[in-house]
């Protein structure tokens, strides 16, 4: 599994598209797909928002994430600001952080994209 992360709008999805030529039906978009689709897809984008939707659907995102097995997964880095005042935002941010650690821990390679530039922060350098 390859994880692609970084801040919003840094070029993560563009990187993933370029590296893996996948078709639209091979990808699960965490913003809108059925949660069950995530478990079967080879490619996942916006996993941080899938985590948010799991929380509102009372699905444990960490248990779900442990079982996740895909080719590549993209998720935003969201934890670099101030702790949110809102409790549910706080919970989302924390659980997303932990889910990200689980994914990065399982991943053979982690790529962080900044300003459109990918840097391999875990695994083999290409």
């Amino acid at each position, binding site marked *: 599994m390859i994880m692609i992360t*970084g*801040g*919003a*709008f*840094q*070029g993560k999805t563009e990187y993933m598209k370029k590296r893996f030529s996948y078709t639209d039906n091979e990808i699960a978009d965490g913003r809108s797909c059925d949660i069950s689709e995530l478990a079967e897809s080879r490619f996942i984008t916006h996993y*941080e928002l899938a985590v948010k939707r799991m929380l509102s659907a009372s699905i444990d995102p960490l248990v779900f994430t442990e079982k996740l097995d895909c080719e590549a997964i993209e998720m*935003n*880095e*969201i*934890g*670099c*600001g*101030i702790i*949110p005042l809102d409790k549910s*935002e706080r919970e*989302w*941010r924390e659980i*997303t952080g932990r889910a990200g650690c689980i994914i990065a821990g399982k991943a053979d390679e982690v790529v962080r994209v*900044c*300003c*459109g*530039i990918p*840097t391999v922060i875990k695994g083999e350098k290409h």
Partner: protein
Amino acid sequence: MTTLITGGAKCGKSHLAEKLLDFFDGGKFYIATMRPFGEEAFASIKRHRRIRAGKGFKTIEKYMDLHEIDVQEKSAVLLECMANLCANEMFRNEEICDPTELIICGIKHLQNCAETLVIVTNNVGSDGIDYGDKTNKYIEVMGRLNALTAALSDNVVECVYGVPVVLKGKL
């Protein structure tokens, strides 16, 4: 030669940008894009001026429309910073606009005139907060603008508490 310096708030980007031009022989221009608006902006401008004093920069205050700037050939230009410039351009009228093309055009213009161009920008999309439509659009434009500028740059450096991390090229 173009170098893009990115990073979070107050992480030593300006200091690094100025240091890169320490040994430059020719004319040095500093393009200041921050509008002097409010107490905090004044304090920030004052602080930057003090740090820059004696380093031989000629300051050009230009909050928008980079393509209109005249700098002499073979000079060094330090543009600070893209986050202010982008906000000034986007919110210049009541309707927000996408200034990406205009800014990229301005950067290419500066690249054509100057021998060395150093651009300071900001990473603004890493806190996951939903700020509402206008600010979310700003975060999106900044992300794209930074990626496009990085593609036009020879070197890209991310500053982390004053530590330069080279993402592209070299320092």
